[in-house]
């Protein structure tokens, strides 16, 4: 990786990266790309987030779903760990709490495949500055 040589270069880089992430989210092929973020701070991992993520990845393979999995930090919902956020193309992200293997399967087969909601969504109750 070449080094960032100036602020202008950093800004150009930001734009480019934003576009890549946008395309990753929206895509030319909207059906194909679903994004799943798993909250993996120490506490999330202790609550089983890692196992759930591994399980979901296997299950997604099995179901032939093209999903991009990423780990992320604390979402703040300690009362509902493990938590994951699912972003369907063209839709607002949805956060699910208390995700164990069974709920993970339910989320994949119901929400991701059939756009059916699953009980126990966590409404985002904060505002973030971008």
């Amino acid at each position, binding site marked *: *990786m070449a*080094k*960032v*040589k*100036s*602020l202008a*270069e*950093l*800004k150009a*880089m*930001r734009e480019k*990266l*934003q576009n*890549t*992430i946008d395309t990753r989210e929206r895509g030319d092929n909207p059906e194909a790309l679903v994004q799943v*973020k798993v*909250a993996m*701070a*120490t*506490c999330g*991992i202790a609550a089983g987030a890692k196992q759930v993520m591994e399980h979901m990845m296997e299950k997604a393979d099995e179901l032939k779903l093209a999903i991009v999995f*990423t*780990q*992320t*930090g*604390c*979402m*703040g*919902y*300690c*009362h*509902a760990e493990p938590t994951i*956020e699912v972003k369907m193309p063209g*839709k*607002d992200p949805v956060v699910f*709490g208390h995700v164990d293997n069974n709920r993970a399967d339910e989320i994949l087969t119901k929400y991701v495949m059939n756009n*059916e*909601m*699953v*009980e*126990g*969504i*966590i*409404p985002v*109750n*904060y*505002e*973030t*500055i*971008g």
Partner: protein
Amino acid sequence: MHVLCCGGTGCHASASAQIIENFKQILAEKGLQDEVQVVQTGCFGFCEKGPIVKIMPDNTFYTQVKPEDVEKIVNEHIIKGRKVTDLLYMDPENQEHVSDSKHMGFYRKQLRIALRNCGFVNPENIDECIARGGYEGLGKCLTEMTPQQVIDEVTKSGLRGRGGAGFPTGVKWGLCAKNKCDEMYVICNADEGDPGAFMDRSIMEGDPHSIVEAMAICGYAIGATHGLVYIRAEYPLAIHRLQVAIAQAREYGLLGNDIMGTGFNFDIELRYGAGAFVCGEETALIHSMEGKRGEPTFKPPFPAVAGYMMKPSNVNNVETFANVPIIITKGADWFQTIGSEKSKGTKVFALAGQINNVGLIEVPMGTTLRDIIYEIGGGIKGGRQFKAVQTGGPSGGCLTTKHLDTQIDYDSLVAAGSMMGSGGMVVMDETSCMVAIAKFYLEFTCEESCGKCSPCRIGNKRMLEILDKITDGRGTMEDLQELRNLAAVIKDAALCGLGQTSPNPVLSTLDNFWDEYVEHVVDKKCRAGVCKKLMRYEIDKDKCIGCGKCAKNCPAEAISKTNYIAEGHKLPSMEIDPTKCIKCGACISGCKFNAISVK
């Protein structure tokens, strides 16, 4: 189409289950059950206006919905596409109805500034961080601002130390910058030690780049080229993510020599602490990093004059640093608009205890305790009564119902007899004994006291002995006065912040829960049933059928038969010998006839 009904405890109590039932039934009657799905969600954090119903995908947000309103919502909104105006949220400021929850940001109690990237970005990927504006603050400082301008901007923003004491960050930087020297240090205090506080860990695990960037900004401002993060070894994941972030930043030329081609050099190293509470005190922290015992020393000299290796050093807490980059990019004027008069910005709290929505929250300074507990926190578990909230950890105190409407900031918390601290917030209900709580925190300080100065080492020990006496039922009214005397001496005479604040949990509970102390001392009673030695287990002779199960369960052989046979029973009842009873509760859990009670 989806109908989302809040299933949080508050809304549940106000008939959200009936609302869901009505939706399902009415939708089925209209044959819409396949088109519209009804689901129950977690808490919206807006319990005052509950029950909440949200219609997707148009984000319509209905508040205070009653079961009989459901038919109207189905007929008007779902079938005809017309919003039911009188159920929409009303903006308290301009009395207008707000239909779209996306434009309701202002009502939301939480605002994430320090946690802006936590839960959004992959912390191990610098690209995602840059895509969200990471390192732009550093770039702006290096190319458009002089070091003095950076310090002025941070000073103007009103940012105060988030470690708990609340010293103005910009002023601290300015003091350090005055002592120009060939070798200076930026130190990040990541020795998070308050029981129950984990915001620093969450920031380092969720957004390590914000810390790396802020430390470089600070380095530029004060003229330092070395950064050190003092982090406890018991945070392995935070350490790993910081290491990854530092390595990636070096690879991108955002750390190291000639950053962004400006000639500015800065690099960061990690130093591991063994997890001693006192090492969160800046002089003790510096000694620990130097390889010496983690003991505080008298200030002055302040670290800004003679810190790490006797060189000028600036120590800031993780959360303080996390605020810095965004202050630079968005400007001090923007930051100033958030928060209360003397405390700007937001504060992260680890909300824990007997509360429904345990979580990591970030609220603007000036938010009331009531909002935090009853709105964001969703109220007390099991519908029990709120009793107290502990803030500031072992240095803070317990606030009570009369403080619920206090607007939280550094100064109001101190005025109420507690302090901000690093942000632990433990909510307690009537099942907590305040004397036992004070004892818990004092035990913690006694264990963590470094032992260097006698007020802290001996004084706290004496206070703990008195509390032991009280919870054992041997306390006297003179003991309560003695607690106050000792507390006053320790506060005045202890060497460092740990000692000076250690009596706070006792003092604040004495002030706010005096009755409870008196009960322990005079009536030998613990109303919460926590202090074991003050409890008495008794068997109701008329309820006891004499089955003897309790005697079998009792590990102390404290239960025996009496000669009394209650009317209608065949066997004599049992009784407990209080001198043998160890108050384990095994008898109660075994009794099917509710014949045993605690008094």
